[in-house]
């Protein structure tokens, strides 16, 4: 579904992405992990067209995303830190995005209802707490029933209840055959969701494996332990 070919991105002298190749398929739920500043967010932003790569191509559904914007209609994106126009209320932001997407199919309002956003439609974005902003981001990401979900630290800042609601929604999307790309530092949170692991370091791909394979080769019970085991034995 998404093919990343020899992607590089330099910010001045810093190599944020270094000749990265990836093949992401439908129905997979992929965890993108790695130390801070390893290029996870840059990779996501490159897929979304927010960062323009210095070299390489990204193919979405057989089409190069260069000079193309329509493919984004199939992506739901939840940013790490959602930044919204401060003077707009929650209701206005939702209306604006609906207006701009010009979506004719029925919307997925599950999260909107479960997070009880209807009660705070008049609240201005600048007055919201980090968690509430994340709820708005999550609602927007799922609203248009996208085939691809890109979630950057989705549960960071959410309270335990909201976090559970979101996780249930992610699993539901996975069962519906969506491609889901999640970055997170909380490996234990990803345990029951993900099917593949991508491990990045300094802009390079270190490992891309199925969770089951990973567990059997390392002989560990959980993802977190397998990763730690790999890092310690330096077999990656």
């Amino acid at each position, binding site marked *: 579904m998404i093919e990343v070919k020899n992607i590089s991105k330099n910010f001045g002298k810093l190599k944020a992405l270094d000749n990265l190749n990836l093949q992401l398929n439908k129905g997979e739920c992929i965890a993108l992990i790695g130390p801070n500043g390893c290029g996870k967010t840059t990779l996501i932003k490159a897929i979304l*067209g927010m*960062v323009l790569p210095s070299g390489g191509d990204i193919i979405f559904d057989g089409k190069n995303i260069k000079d193309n*914007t329509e493919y984004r209609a199939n992506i739901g994106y939840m940013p790490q830190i959602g930044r*919204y*126009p401060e003077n707009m209320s929650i209701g206005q932001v939702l209306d*604006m995005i609906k207006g701009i997407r010009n979506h004719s199919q029925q919307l997925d309002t599950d999260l909107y209802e479960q997070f009880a956003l209807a009660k705070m439609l008049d609240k201005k974005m600048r007055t919201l707490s980090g968690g509430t902003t994340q709820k708005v981001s999550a609602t927007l990401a799922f609203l248009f029933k996208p085939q691809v979900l890109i979630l950057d630290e989705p549960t960071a800042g959410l309270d335990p209840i909201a976090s559970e609601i979101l996780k249930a929604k992610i699993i539901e999307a996975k069962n519906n055959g969506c491609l889901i790309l999640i970055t997170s530092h909380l490996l234990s949170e990803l345990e029951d969701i993900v099917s593949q692991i991508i491990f990045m370091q300094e802009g390079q791909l270190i490992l891309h494996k199925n969770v089951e394979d990973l567990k059997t080769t390392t002989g560990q019970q959980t993802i977190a332990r397998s990763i730690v085991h790999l890092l310690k034995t330096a077999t990656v």
Partner: protein
Amino acid sequence: MIRILKYVALDILKNKIIIAYAIMLALFSWSSFGLEDNASKGLLTVLNIVLLTVPLMSILFATIYIYNSGEFIELLVSHPVKRSKIWKALFTGLSVSMIAAYVIGAGIPLLIFTNWDIALMMIAVGSLLSVIFVALAFLSSIITRDKAKGIGTSIMLWLYFALLFDGLVLFLFFQFADYPIEKVIVFLSALSPIDLSRILILLRLDVSAMLGYTGAVFKNSFGSDWGLVVSFLLLSLWILLPFYISLRKFRKKDL
């Protein structure tokens, strides 16, 4: 683009600074015409105020607004919206609101107190100046990511065009007075939209004493009618060029 423009325009028109700007222009214009019993004297006062304040307000407000729209742009870019559409919508929204404030503030008293042809010319020139400096604001805010630097660049641009430029031309003229440099001066005057606007209005008013050096040479070289056409064309170029450069840069910007 229309859909994005709707939200941008609504947001700007709610902004109190735009309203204050319109009221300030109105106060200046009404009082200038009220103080002088001769309307053409009042017109010259208004002209000078317009040539100073319209560029300053347009470039400063637009620069700050673009920097504050960073979140708005980021939000839209992750959706299926072309980058050029976002940039064009912002540009149109800002231009339209600056023009609206100018027409309401200064245009109405001009229409009441002066001849229609002169008033219309003033409105056209003021609107063009507003859009030109909005375009320059787009250029200076895309050049640097840092808000303070961007605003600084905008103020420097305004200072240069509004105050320094005519002085520089005059200085050059006195230094090279022995040589035939009229043609060069005409060419130089094209390099400042504010000078061009002044020439446009004064060619219409026919007060040669106020033309300034560049204006006098302009009139000699082109005569009134050609002078008008050429300066209008040059002013449009001042809108297209900075905006086009900023648009190209915005397409390649990392957000």
